[in-house]
């Protein structure tokens, strides 16, 4: 039984006929697994995670055949019950560390708040644990940082504090929503290394939402490629990079600058992601796909197992088995 199970998740904003932002997404995450979700902006990566944690507000609506985490049906939980699970067993690290901490309170207070809420620690014990957490995320001079306000910390340091807050409840699943996008390159590497070390140490599952394919290649075991709200390919790491089966995965990999060395321009996929009013009838990639066939324009493919991965395409690439 996997830790997180998502079956046919749909998220819409507006009435029931609105264009789905997340469209029939299936996802499984096992305990201690690192899953990466990649895709361009607006492909539904973050909304999926918000839906999972019950943070989609009206007019957003969520439907799913199954949305279970650690044996809890997340769709049926009441607000109070959900707040017991989310934040303790499931935690999140945000993209921009400068806004992820409350500017009005000290770092120590904010970590202690989580400890108080979820572990019932108070007073000295909470402060001691907060200090341990800050040391765990490798913050220098942790003792004095407990009394620092967020504006007194650098971006990388704030992100470390945010990670400390996220792992305070010893979560089984940590969701990192582009944790390194707002940081500079050297700090990015440090933060990624920290996240992976913590993941191994605590044997928690990690969902890594990112644009950065290099990070995915180095860290994740499995990748889910999303396009316009759909998972278009889900596969293991080296295979998906070596033998992408979906044309979109292939285009995404081809767009890495290193692959275009010597060429005058970087390889790109022509066109833009379909919006609310120009969603094609057939495969969502069909207007942009270099391999498009007639039936691609009329029918939507489903996510089916192919030679190396699950692919949402009628004509998957690289299918010869070595």
């Amino acid at each position, binding site marked *: 039984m996997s830790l997180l199970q998502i079956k046919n998740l749909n998220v819409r904003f507006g009435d029931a006929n609105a264009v789905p932002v997340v469209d029939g997404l299936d996802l499984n995450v096992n305990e201690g697994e690192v899953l990466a979700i990649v895709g361009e902006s607006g492909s539904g990566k973050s909304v999926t995670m918000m839906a999972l944690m019950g943070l989609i507000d009206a007019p957003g609506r969520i439907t799913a055949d199954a949305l279970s985490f650690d044996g809890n049906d997340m769709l049926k939980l009441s607000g109070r019950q959900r707040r017991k699970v989310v934040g303790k067993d499931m935690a999140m690290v945000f993209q921009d560390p400068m*806004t992820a901490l409350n500017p009005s309170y000290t770092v120590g207070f904010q970590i202690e708040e989580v400890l108080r809420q979820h572990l019932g620690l108070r007073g000295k014990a909470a402060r001691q644990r907060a200090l341990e957490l800050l040391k765990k995320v490798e913050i220098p001079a942790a003792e004095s940082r407990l009394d620092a306000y967020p504006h007194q910390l650098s971006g990388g340091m704030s992100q470390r504090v945010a990670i400390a807050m996220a792992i305070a409840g010893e979560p089984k699943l940590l969701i990192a929503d582009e944790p390194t996008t707002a940081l500079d390159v050297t700090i990015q590497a440090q933060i990624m290394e920290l996240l992976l070390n913590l993941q191994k140490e605590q044997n928690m599952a990690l969902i890594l939402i990112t644009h950065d394919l290099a990070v995915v290649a180095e860290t994740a075991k499995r990748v889910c490629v999303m396009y316009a709200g759909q998972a278009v390919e889900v596969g293991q790491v080296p295979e998906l990079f070596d033998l992408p089966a979906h044309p979109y995965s292939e285009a995404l990999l081809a767009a890495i600058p290193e692959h275009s060395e010597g060429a005058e321009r970087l390889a790109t996929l022509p066109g833009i992601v379909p919006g609310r009013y120009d969603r094609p009838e057939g495969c969502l990639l069909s207007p942009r796909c270099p391999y498009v066939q007639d039936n691609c324009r009329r029918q939507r493919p489903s996510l089916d197992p192919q030679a190396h991965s699950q692919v949402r395409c009628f004509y998957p690439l690289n299918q010869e088995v070595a």
Partner: protein
Amino acid sequence: MTTPIAKTVTTPATPVDQSLLYPSPYKEFWQAFSRNKGAVAGLMFMCLIVFCALFAPWVAPHNPSEQYRDFLLTPPVWLEGGNWQFILGTDELGRDLLSRLITGARLSLLIGLSSVLISLIPGVFLGLLAGFFPRILGPSIMRLMDVMLALPSLLLAVAIVAILGPGLINTVIAIAIVSLPSYVRLTRAAVMGELNRDYVTAARLAGAGLPRLMFVTVLPNCMAPLIVQATLSFSSAILDAAALGFLGLGVQPPTPEWGTMLASARDYIERAWWVVSLPGLTILLSVLAINLMGDGLRDALDPKLKNAA
């Protein structure tokens, strides 16, 4: 011989690394505030007025209601015919002007403080509600506030006092109602700005319920503009109270209140200018002091205007 050497060695080791000691927020605030000389001057004048108000019976040289029938309209000491007994002169009934001004500070500060509190608390609460429920409750609150803003504030205050009847408490209520919309708007705007930030999502994730989210997570981050608005409306409350008093709708004579004093003395403006000018000057100075202080507060509290990186 050895002791002085030991001393010189140990002294550099004792100071803790300065970069790791964060200045307390109060110290930081005071540094930013004291850089503004006008604000400090305003603060000092306000301290003087607060002192006068608190210790009025001991500070004032005379009983403010005592009528010295032999000294009607005595000019201040520095004018011809002045008398050291009445430093700022007396009014048409022979009451000591300085004592009345000092005692009047009590009432003016009381009106300012209580009307600010009475409008701040519901205003912040309504603003929070409007920011947190943007679908139905928010717009209905805001339209109501727009209606109140559409009326000239003094006119609205006069209308409210006309309904409730003149008097101290009704004056306070009228001023509080009139200044309510600005708090609601400010709070709502600040809340809407803060709600999009990740730390609010993080707090929801960490299990914060709605009341905690409203009052503990978001409200402290909206306080800076509210504090400034509160100081500024403190001064406009004093002005409004004086205006209502001048129109005969505020505090009733013989209670010494600056606006009422101004109104009752206006017949003597040609014969005894001090009876009118001195209460007017007091109002002017205290309003100016509060406004200067408010400006300083804004500079010190608003991170966007802070020049320190």
